């Protein structure tokens, strides 16, 4: 029975001791401990957040980098393609020009030749007419009265002759 009978003395002292302990801890201990723990928790969570943000930023940066890389690559391809086209155009146009030039030169050369040929023919014709007239004169032995008329005649004959 003694074991389960509360005693007033122990009740009193327990109240006193517990309340003093409670007030001491509440006033001096727990605010410090709670504050420090909370501060640390905040610091840890902010650090984690920061790390997460940094990670995200890094990922963004990487994505942007690869994007830029891809862009640059496509740009390069485009430029190279353009250059190739350009080259082809230049080739084409130069070939064209060369051909034209060649044609032109050939034509003028041909025209020159033709002209020279004509001149030569003319000369030949004149000299042939003169020659034939001289020969005819010699053959006939006498000078034809109207030399110019004869000449015309020969020339006509030569023209008809068509070399």
């Amino acid at each position, binding site marked *: 029975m*003694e*074991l*389960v*009978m*509360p*005693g*007033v*003395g*122990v*009740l*009193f*002292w*327990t*109240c006193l*001791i*517990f309340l*003093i*302990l*409670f007030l*001491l*801890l*509440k006033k*001096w*201990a*727990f605010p*410090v*401990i*709670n504050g*420090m*723990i909370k*501060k*640390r928790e905040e*610091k840890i969570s902010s650090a984690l957040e920061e790390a997460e943000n940094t990670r995200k930023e890094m990922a963004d940066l990487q994505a942007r980098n690869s994007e830029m890389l891809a862009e640059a690559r496509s740009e390069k391809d485009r430029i190279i393609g353009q250059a190739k086209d350009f080259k082809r155009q230049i080739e084409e146009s130069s070939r064209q020009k060369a051909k034209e030039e060649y044609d032109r030169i050939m034509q003028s050369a041909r025209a020159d030749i033709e002209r020279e040929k004509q001149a030569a023919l003319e000369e030949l014709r004149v000299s042939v007419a003169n020659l034939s007239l001289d020969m005819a004169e010699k053959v006939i032995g006498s000078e034809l009265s109207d030399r110019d008329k004869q000449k015309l005649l020969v020339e006509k004959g030569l023209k008809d002759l068509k070399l």
Partner: protein
Amino acid sequence: MSLFYLYSQVSFWLEDMAKRLVIRFLVCVGAFLALCQGGKSLPVAQPLAAGAVDARQAETGRQDAAPGMQQEVFNAGDMILDHITDKHSWHICDWKGEAVVVHLPVILLHEGKLHCFSSARFENSDHVYGSFQLRTESPHKGRIVALEKGSDGRVGIAERLPWDFSITKTVAAMMVSSLFLVILFVFIVRNYKKRGEKAPKGIAALFEPVYLFVRDEVVYANLGKEHGDRYLPYLATLFFFIFLGNFLGIVPFFPFGANITGNISVTLVLALLTFLITMGSSTKAYWKHTFNTPGVPMWMKFPVPLMPAIEVMEIFTKPFVLMIRLFANMTAGHIIILGFVSLVLIFGQQSVALGWAVSPLTIVFGLFADALELLVSFIQAYIFTMLSANYFAGALAYEPGKPSHGH
């Protein structure tokens, strides 16, 4: 090849060990037997030659038990009860036939007057000092009574007991434990202040997981963060007070070892505080829940208020059970440990050899009981705090995320 080598080495080693163990065992047994032969000079309780001993004599002998009076019957029940009940003096040990006792101050309030004196004053044959007597026998056993002359001239026990505000063994142990706690917290707080936001070190590192466990698993889990922060100082103090009281109660040497939390007055105060805080923080919803419990059919409430009666009873049974649980658990733990210790003395009474033979068993069982008590001291502190938090949550009609409403 190397495996086989390893195997042979190991087997040789094991064989060697086994041989050594056998030899050691034989040596131990030999030493044990030798000790038993010489054991007659050992200060262990001797087998009693004379059979019948007056029980009363045994009891009075127990009060100032000393190995000098070896012709006493060892009564385990009395010894255990003597250890777990409150005392006005603190018996530390027996040294050379003398009991080493710390005499604690006795403070009495009797008929408007305060009497303070050392409990050493009661160390006489009648346990009387002035007009007070420390009872060692049945009416008011273990208490201090006032003596007065009756109408017939004989000195008898006064009707009115003096108010006993003595620093008893429990109170002294509680002071030691609280002082211990305060010193612990001084170191912890200093550590926190010194280390700032860095991780705690040393004693604070040991303390913090426990504190965080109380904060997160007990307080916040029941009360949520908002209410939890208001109740945290009380609940944390409660936890550490109970835990340290339990824990130091099983440390078996002097300034500890008293059955603090196994004292019904202590647990009564703690339960009462929880009850008062519960009542203080009760809300309208709580009283509505008490008198008009939702989800209960009307016939259980209206003509005969069965459910409200049960709920009102529950208001008082909750703290009552809180009180009984801690008291009973801690007292039972002390009884078990002391029971195992008594085993050696009980058997030693039959024969000294038997006492020695039982002692290893006692040590093993006692160790087991001590380890169990270590666990129990934590669990009981946890349960008391947990249930207190739960009752507060009930009074606030606060429901955390889980549907675990206090019932």
